[in-house]
């Protein structure tokens, strides 16, 4: 199970890269709202990928 969570974090990292790339691409294609959407999604995915290794003290 630990290895699966490790693999999920790497997949989330790649997904974040994809979301960021899509966001920047949308910015260049005059789709500002879509760019904001994908950049926000990328930031969340990236945060989730590292939070898998740094759980908060309160979580059980």
């Amino acid at each position, binding site marked *: *199970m*630990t290895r*699966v*969570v*490790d693999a999920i*974090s*790497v997949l989330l*990292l*790649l997904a*974040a*890269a*994809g979301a*960021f*790339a899509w*966001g*920047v*691409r949308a*910015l*260049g294609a*005059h789709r500002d709202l879509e760019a904001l*959407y994908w*950049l*926000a*999604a*990328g*930031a*969340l*995915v*990236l*945060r*989730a*990928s*590292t*939070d*898998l*290794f*740094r*759980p*908060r003290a309160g*979580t*059980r």
Partner: protein
Amino acid sequence: MDPVGATRPSALRRGLVSLTNRLLPGLYAWLTTVGSPATARGASFAARAAAFLALACLVAGPVVALERPRLGRALGVLAFVGFSLVTWFLLGPLIGVQRLDPLRAGLGMVGWALFALGWGSLRRADAIPEDHPHAVAGESLSARGALPRGAVAIVLLGTLAAAAPIYYAWTVTRAQHALLAHAVALACALGLVDAGSVIAVERGKWRPVLPPRRRLGGAARPLAVLTFLLFIGLLWKLFS
């Protein structure tokens, strides 16, 4: 065998390698980002003169550095970069984002990065660190742990993934948005490299590995917000 004669070819070889390492990346960066727009139609005489002065400094720098390193570095780095900046300033709208070829711009960026690396100095392969006059004497410090398996591969993956937003930033041709795209892409790339390093290292054995359920619980909040965002996006796509 004459020891002086034996060391001379080695010193000559080192000098040639150093010269090539410094000259070739700079020449590539100059050709793609300075020489090419400066020789294009419409460039002013001043811009062309500045570009060729930059080239002269680039070539002179490594040669002078063999005898006088400080002067050579000043010529090969500061003067070369300075005249390149003057050229870009004088070229003005000729190097506007509308005229930039994303591939050439990306390759030029790689050229400048290699140029910076070329002027860096590395410890010689046969040098012994303890022989350095400023070396601190005493017991050598051993590493307290080893990197977890696959750490280098994950960092490499994160670094390669970071290239994706930077590549797309070069394709933005809207003048007023191009700089913003580069700033956003740079921030994204830094975040990706940082996250890749965290994922690579935090699997180490120096900290007790938490149970998977607790790890998933730690990421629950961003994952929940992400799910909500994706749901909104899906609705938007369906009904727009």
